[in-house]
């Protein structure tokens, strides 16, 4: 049962991943991305990480890709891409090298087991999810005890990012009638 679910969702994930890269229309690429994300959510369920699966769908599929689609639709770039021009010089050969390196690393991990590279056999160690508590309960406990500072700092970082984005996009006019964005451009 578990193996069958794994194989089916792996196929879904891989087809989606190839589709993201291969499709010429950005909206189609975003839809393939959703397919991959939902497939990963199924894998989370398979590993008893129900909460992660739900968050995967709510946050990634429900918010982030929707945001991508918004940008694609509002900027009107939903046309097939011109692929012959290389935006950055040397981008393609470099991508090939990095891709080959990634395949080599993943291949090593799969063939020899994870501990060769990281020394870790399973992520989480003694916090692995085999007790009675649900994953959401354990995650909450860990996040608000051991990693409380990390959580708070992340929250502060996100707030800073939001405030920064608002300040950057807000057009406040100066006394000379120009907007702050224009002034910055002139000064630099």
């Amino acid at each position, binding site marked *: 049962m*578990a193996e069958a679910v794994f194989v089916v969702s792996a196929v879904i994930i891989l087809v989606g991943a190839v589709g993201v890269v291969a499709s010429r*229309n950005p*909206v189609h690429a975003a839809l393939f991305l959703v397919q991959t994300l939902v497939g990963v959510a199924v894998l989370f369920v398979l*590993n008893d990480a129900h909460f992660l699966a739900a968050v995967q769908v709510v946050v990634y599929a*429900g918010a982030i890709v929707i945001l991508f689609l918004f940008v694609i639709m509002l900027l009107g770039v939903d046309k097939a891409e011109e692929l012959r021009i290389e935006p950055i010089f040397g981008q393609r050969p470099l991508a090939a090298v990095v891709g080959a390196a990634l395949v080599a690393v993943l291949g090593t991990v799969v063939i020899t087991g994870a501990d060769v590279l990281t020394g870790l056999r399973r992520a989480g160690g003694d916090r692995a999810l085999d007790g009675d508590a649900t994953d*959401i309960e354990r995650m909450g406990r860990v996040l608000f005890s051991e990693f409380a500072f990390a959580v708070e700092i992340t929250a502060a970082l996100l707030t800073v990012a939001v405030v920064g984005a608002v300040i950057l996009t807000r057009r406040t006019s100066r006394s000379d009638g120009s907007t702050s964005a224009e002034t910055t451009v002139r000064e630099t």
Partner: protein
Amino acid sequence: MSGTLVLAADPMLAGDIGLVEVVLTLAKVVVAFAFLLVAVMLMIWFERKLLGGMHQRFGPTIAGPFGILQTLADGTKLFFKEDLVPDRSDRFVFKLAPYLSLIPAFLAFAIVPLGGDFNNAGQVEWWGRTTYLQVADPPIGILLFLAMSSVAVYGVMLAGWSSGSKYPLLGSVRASAQMVSYEAALGLAVASIVLVTGGLSTHDMVVAQAAEGYFGIIPRWNVIVTGLVPFIVFMIAGTAELNRPPFDLVEAEQELVGGFHTEYSSIRFALFFLAEFMNTITMSAIIVTLFFGGPAGPVLVSEVGGVGIAWAWGVVWFFLKLFVLLFCFVWMRATLPRFRYDQLMDLGWKALIPVALGWFLFLTALDVGREQGWSEAAVTVVSLLVFAGAALLLVRAVRSGRGIRDSEAARADEQSDPVEDRA
């Protein structure tokens, strides 16, 4: 990878899964789906009839007694109409979009407890198997509903985009912005319920609400336990999430022709229509589950002719509550005029989200106070003072922000002489 798949807390699925379990589960799915389809049919008729009554006209009268078969007639008509796919559309996505609207509406319904005797933990015994009267009770419970409502955005968004036409695109951008905005308020209202229940499972929520109430007569429903505010927030955000009036500017006919489904015809349009009403029923069912105790209620007659019918009372109470909520949705539609787009966004971001968040923190403070043995009155007074202070700050911030914006706009109008400025 763990060898077992934990899909539900349903006791029937805890042990070995044989033929009986599979058949029972399939039967539940079929019954729930059939119920939803029939309910949609009746709901469309009910809404039109009730709107007619409230507008002082008749509503449907021709097909069947009281026009009750009107939906069937409309459905048949739509089915036999020509199915058009616009020339400039993205054909595959255009055909996919209606299903992306419809399927989440049904999936979210799967977590609603439909019946059962909740004086006895809501369990029923059929063919020697103990089970719940709900299609699924997944560990993520109510999060499934939130996930489905965020997936439902795709149906609307892609329908508008793939039509390859201006008005549908504008309508779909509006719709998805609205749905994404109100999801946050919806989630915060749900968080209050999760807090008082102590778990995500919808079944547990109903069990908690079925407990002994106050003074022997007032039920322990979450609408009372959480102090009404989350319910109001959820009701408003839910209406906006459904794109129903007064938040139906997605398909504002005067501005956008028909909104995201302008280019749809025949059976594909019928699917959108079906999804819309299915979503209304699902949302009402979720509200009943979260705030009004779902199928929990007294058992008046526990046996008829030696057959236990205690579980059936749950179904009766559930339908009564569902009916009242559906009536309220139609009532709101008949009463309230449509919002403007900026009013909609203001209400969502500047009123509902802060109120829901503040109330959630208040409930948390009460909970912590109870655990630490603090005086409940003191906690309440201090929290409400903090709440009021924060509200005051927020109102001032919004007002001064608006003031600055207005004065800037006025100054810009005064000074900007476009030709001179460019030079």
